[in-house]
């Protein structure tokens, strides 16, 4: 059974607690999630663009024949990175589907 002092301690420990319902907190978390996604996509794009530029420059300086292939690869790479979350999601769904099919 709780003593009076136990109750006072518990009350003090509960003081300063946030409200039971706080939609703004949810909004802030979702905002942070969106920001994180945006940053990830931005960095991915930047890296892909750098890679693509490097490949293109290297190929152009070597021979013209391979340039077309390199450019195509670069475009595919950038597109893949730009849509990385969707590709990742589709991949996870595919793997999960296979797992369920196997069991």
């Amino acid at each position, binding site marked *: 059974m709780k003593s009076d002092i136990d109750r006072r301690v518990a009350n003090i*420990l509960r003081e300063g607690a946030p409200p039971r319902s706080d939609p703004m907190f949810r909004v802030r978390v979702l905002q942070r999630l969106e920001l994180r996604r945006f940053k990830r996509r931005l960095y991915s794009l930047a890296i892909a663009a750098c890679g693509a530029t490097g490949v293109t420059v290297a190929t152009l300086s070597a021979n013209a024949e391979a340039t077309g292939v390199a450019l195509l690869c670069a475009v595919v790479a950038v597109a893949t990175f730009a849509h990385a979350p969707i590709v990742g999601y589709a991949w996870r769904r595919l793997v999960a589907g296979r797992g369920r099919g196997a069991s």
Partner: protein
Amino acid sequence: MEDADAALLSAIGEGSERAFGQLIDRHQHGVRAFLRRLVSPSDADDIAQETFLAAWTHADTYRGGATVRSWLFAIAWRKAKDCHRRRFRQRQRETQYHELHAAVASDGVTAEDRLAVQRALASLPLEQQAALTLCLANELTHAEAAAVLGMPLGTVKSHVLRGRERLRLALEEDP
């Protein structure tokens, strides 16, 4: 309740932001209240947000051994420990000062009581503070608190017993 939480986590694992919002609504109060006893209020909200983002990222790793609430508290606890290492002591002094001056007496709790308990709480090791907060304020069982903190059950019981005694003494010395 627990089934609903597990269903929400499962939906979150499949990318449902709606389920994520519901999980936040259900548990933000407990997680933030727990963190506010360990770090400053601004750090607490920051860590709470990171806790929910970690839940979003790792929802598919939840195996159902513990309750979703305990799982969230465990994530929050690990993040709070990291934060504590960085700047707890400096923040604690500021927080004590602000809380003493901002809080209004409620439930028969005087500012002196509050300060005495806060001082006593701050003098305890972080693990003891967390165990006390989880068991007294968040009303987790000793076993749940042990799972959250990653400690043996006996250690948690001893932390709560000793911590409660320290807080009681602080209140009795300051009637």
